Structures are given as structure tokens and as C-alpha cells.
């Protein structure tokens, strides 16, 4: 029967479309990251390169408050100083300290968060413990630097800002599907 056969052909085509769209859902994951990369948003976990020679604006003072949190892992995590006063364009280094309070080896990943949000566009980080995952042996203490610079293009009305890090536990069998936090 020709209609029945035409129907089956149609169903096959539509099934292929459905399966392809299921795959497309997953293809959106790398696509999303590519778009973020091209658009320059959301690259919180990558080192920035200082390409041009930026002049330090000594006429302005900025207060950067440092904040540290842990989420669900037995670590103690704190900045070595509560805040720093810096000039825009000045390269600064601050230290954080993390201590593994448990007697097992724990892997963690720090996720940064900035306040106000627009700081993300003007903050250049050359080095950060958040670029890689940190593995701490039982009771190990580690001091970790963050090297950053805030561009003078930061609007004048922003004088106080917060850089915050939260450590999350990485289970040993977790699969990295995001492609941003590359293990060492």
C-alpha cells in the first residue's frame, strides 16, 4: 500500500530529525562555551594576558575586599588580609590560605565571584589558584597567590569592590564536561 509506505518513510525522516535535535541539545554545550569565549564573557577561570602597557592611575584609590567561602568540603579557607587598597592599573598580589582539616585527600575547585558585577570586565588576573584544581593531602596547609590588576577603565563611581572565592569539592570520578576548569 503506497500510503502506508509513504507514511513509514515520513516517520523515518521525522525520527531522524528528533534524534538529531536530541544531539543538538548536547551540541549546544560546546557551542555555548565557544560563544562565551568569542564574546569574551564568562572566562573567569582563565589567565588574562597583559598585552598593552597600562599606566597606573595614582590619582584614584580602590578598596578591594577579599572574601573566601567553602561549600561542602572539610577545608578552612581564608584570605591573608581582609582588604587591600590599590590604584587602578597597579599589579598586585594577594595571598589566600587553605587548610585541609580532614585526614583524607580532598580535591577542590575555587569559583570566583565579583561584586559589583561589572568588575569582571575590568579585572585582569595573571595568576590565580582558581585556574587549576587544588588537591590537598590530609591536614595540608597551602598558601596560594592571586595576581591581578584592575584596569583604569573601571568607572569612577566604583570605589569599593569584593573579590570572592568559593571552594567546591571535586569528587574523584567527576567528569569535566565544561572544559573550563582543567585539572592539572
Amino acid at each position: 500500500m503506497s500510503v502506508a509506505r509513504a507514511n513509514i518513510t515520513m516517520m523515518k525522516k521525522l525520527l531522524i530529525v528528533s534524534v538529531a535535535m536530541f544531539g543538538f541539545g548536547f551540541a549546544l554545550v560546546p557551542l555555548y562555551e565557544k560563544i562565551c569565549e568569542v564574546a569574551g564573557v564568562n572566562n573567569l577561570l582563565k589567565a588574562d594576558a597583559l598585552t598593552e602597557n597600562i599606566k597606573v592611575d595614582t590619582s584614584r584609590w580602590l578598596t578591594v575586599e577579599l572574601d573566601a567561602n567553602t561549600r561542602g568540603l572539610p577545608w578552612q579557607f581564608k584570605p591573608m588580609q581582609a582588604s587591600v587598597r590599590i590604584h587602578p592599573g597597579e599589579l598586585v598580589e594577594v595571598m589566600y590560605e587553605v587548610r585541609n582539616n580532614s585526614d583524607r585527600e580532598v580535591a577542590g575547585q575555587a569559583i570566583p565571584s565579583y561584586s559589583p558585577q561589572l568588575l569582571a570586565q575590568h579585572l585582569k588576573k595573571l595568576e590565580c589558584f582558581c585556574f587549576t584544581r587544588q588537591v590537598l593531602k590530609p591536614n595540608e596547609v597551602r598558601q596560594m597567590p592571586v595576581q591581578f590588576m584592575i584596569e583604569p577603565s573601571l568607572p569612577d563611581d566604583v570605589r569599593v569592590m569584593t573579590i570572592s572565592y568559593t571552594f567546591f569539592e571535586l569528587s574523584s570520578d567527576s567528569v569535566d564536561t565544561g572544559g573550563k576548569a582543567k585539572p592539572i
Partner: protein
Amino acid sequence: MAAVHDDHAHGHGHGHEHGHDDHAHGPPKGMMRWLTTTNHKDIGTMYLWFSFSMFLVGGMMAFGIRAELFQPGMQLMTPEFFNSLTTNHGLIMVFGAIMPAFVGFANWQVPMMIGAPDMAFARMNNWSFWLLPPAALLLVAAFFVPGGAGAGGWTFYPPLSVQMGMGMDMMIFAVHILGASSIMGSINIITTILNMRAPGMTLMKMPLFVWTWLITAYLLVLVMPVLAGTVTMLLTDRHFGTNFFNAAGGGDPIMFQHIFWFFGHPEVYIMILPAFGIVSEILPTFSRKPLFGYSSMVYATASIAILSCIVWAHHMFTVGMPVTAQLFFMYATMLIAVPTGVKVFNWTATMWQGSMSFETPMLFAIGFIFLFTIGGFSGVVCAVIPVDIQVQETYYVIAHFHYVLVSGSLFALFGGVYYWLPKWTGHMYDESLGRLHFWLSMVFFNVTFFVQHFLGLAGMPRRVPDYALQFADFNMISSIGAFGFGLSQLVFLAAVVKCIRGGKKAEAKPWDGATTLEWDLPSPAPYHSWVTPPVVK
């Protein structure tokens, strides 16, 4: 897969021959009739009753929500349970009530309106329906497992949806099943419409309801698999150590929102396009004039469907996006108002100088145009980024989407039920019950939702069981309206049951202005219709 196809072909052919033999006897009796049926009318009926019962379940949840919000302060339930109610009210109304109801209409009407004997894949049709009850059971049973039902909103946003208990897994599985059912249903509808039209019925002669369903079915095939993929990622994040949405593992919770709304925005048009179709059938009938601008209606429907795929991020203007992207999504969203406006103007022009009469289906159709347009306008308001940032996650958004989903989709469904009940049951419904149902719904709907615009503009957040004192009066009005709206639906049930049981005998064509093919069949429509296809001139 090939084996399955052959089986379908065989099953279909067999069913067909069987149909001829069985013609005089009608359907088998008892429970087995409904379990094993491959008849599009039986399956359509089951879809409609299923969606009505889900409508009552979701309605009971809304009842709980409005009871808690009747007064400020915590009165009746824990905040977690309140959040479970809002989450599952949304999920059940979208996937359990509105969508299956439209598929029920498609099952009943599409074969009769295009002159086909049945759906293309009759057995798959049975399977599409019988997947629904287990999914509904999963959704409802989730309330009784440790941790309760999912409470992170019907949109499954991580990180909440990654952290919750097994109720969330049941929600995810339910969505998988519902998605599979929708995809099978859509494949069936597309194939039926494209391959099984009566001789002479060209695409541009199809009734508009068939057109809107054809386009809706394509949208479903395109985006339902994406939703299935998204919730699959959620499931593997929860149990198999992947980190698609887990920031600590290099994933991104905002990416979930992008993928979800890539499905979610076409989804809202999936719920409204068939409603456009139903209204476009009812209006010409009761205006006794052909539909104004038929071809522009078809093109407008197609444009809406295409545009709906590129506007998803207007649901998430506040998550942080480059300004260029925000502007793109804002303009694209506003662009949808153009084809939608074409439709509203065409409907109005259809009524213009028509010989109108106001039976219940027409009342619902006019109520639809009036209230859906209000919902459409508040949609344009929400599309404006600065305004949206203000009203994001407030009751303004709740008011907006209930205007398009309740007084849009649901009113069109009610109108369609009254319009086709004579054909389905062979009896005329009770006109005064129908009118009572319409006016009660119309009044109580507006009492419930119009005031929510004010609440939203004043800043009342959604999904919170308690609120500040200044919101008290409007919330009480809204709750009273909601109780009234819910109870009014019992009038609908009474009208439908009364019509099934008896009433004035319906003629083959009870509406003198009707023109589509189903009215050439006797009322009630015979169990097997158009065994010999009609010829369309």
C-alpha cells in the same frame, strides 16, 4: 528499528481491514476497548479526559497556592510544600493539561477535517496516549517520597534541581516520558496531515486548525528532544558525576537556562498555535463569513513559529548577557507582535459586518481575542529590557502568562469543546450551562489575574509563600477570584457530562455557518469515518 516499522505497517494494514469487517459492530466493549484501541476518536477522547483530570489536579494545587496567599503570614503549609505546589502546578498544567488537550483535539479533528480514515500510525497513537498516565503518576507520587516533590520551579533551574531529593528524579523521568509521547504524537500528526489528505485538498485548502497543528507538530519535533537532552544532562549531573551545570566542575548553571529556554520559548507557542487554529474555525462559523485573510493567517503562523526559535533569552535578561545579545533578543521578541497582530486584525475583520450569533463557542472565541490581546501586550511590555529587569520574577510575569495560557489556550480549548461536542456526542450541549460557564470563567479569571499586574508592578515576588502587608488586599481579591474560577469549572464538567448523557439530538451540521469537512459526517461521528475519502473541490 526496521522491525518496529514493519510491525506498524502490518498493524495499520490489518487494523484497516478489520475496520471494514467491524463496521457494523462498532467498538469492543469494556476496559479492553480503551486499552487496546487504535481508533483516533477513542484516543482523542482519552486524551481529553486525561487532560481534564490533570487540569483538576493542577487546579487543586493552584487552590492550595491561593489559599496560602489569601492572607499574609504562613498559614497552611511549609514553604517547601508551597514551592512544590507552584512547581508542579506549572508542570502539570503545561505538560499534563494543555498539551494533551490539544493532542486530543488533533486526534479527533485532524482526520475528520482532512478526510482521512484514521491517524497514520494507529498503534503508535495508542502508545503515545498510554505513556501519559505513568508520567502523571510519577509527578503526583513524587509528593509522597522522602524530600517531597520537586520544588525548584517548573523550569528545573540548577543548582536547586541538582541538589533536590528523589522527587526531582521522578520529575525528570516524567518529562522524559511526556516528551517521548509528544514526539510520537507529533510524528503521527505530521504524517497524517502530509500524506493522508482527501483528494483535492491542497495544503492551502486545509482548515486553519489543521495548519496550526502541522506547524505546532514541527515545532514539537524540533524542540522536545532538546528538552529531553537538557533533563538528561541534569540527571547525569545528579547521579553520574558529570558537571554540565555544576560551576565547581567547570560547568555553568546559566547554560542550563539557555538550553532550557531554547525549548521553552517555542513551547509557549506550541501551547498557543493550536488555540489560534480553534479560534480561526469558530469565528467564521458564528460570523457566517469566510475567515478573513486565510493565507496571511498561514504565513503569520509560520512566522511566529520561526521567530519563536530565536527569542529564548528574553526569559533571562537578568542573568548577565552582552548588551548586543540583549538588544537582539528584545527586538526579535517585539517582532513577534507583528504576525500576532496580523492574526488579531484578521479575526476582527472576520467578525466585521458578519451576521454574528453568540453561542458558547463564539463567546469563548471572543473572550479569547479580548484577553489574549491583553496578555500579548503585557508580553511586549516584558520584552522591553529595562522594564523586564524591574518585573522579572514578580507577579507581573505571572499575570502575563496566565493571560496567554488560561484566557488564551484554555479558553480556546473550552470554545473548541463546545463547538465540536455536538459532533462528538451527537447531542447539543445545554446552552445556558455553557453560557454560565463562560461568564463565570470570564469574570473570575479577571478577578484572579488582573490584580496580579498591580502586585507585580508593586514588586511582589513570585514563588514565595508569604508577602509584605501592603500586598494583602490584592492577594485576597486574587484568591477569591481563583476559588471562584476553580469552582466554575465544575459547571463545565456538568455541561459536558449532561451533553454526553443526552440532550437535543444534534444535526450533522448544527452550526449553519460551518464549512469544514467534519460537518459532512453524521452526528455523532461514526466510529469509522471517511473510509471512502471525500473529494474536495
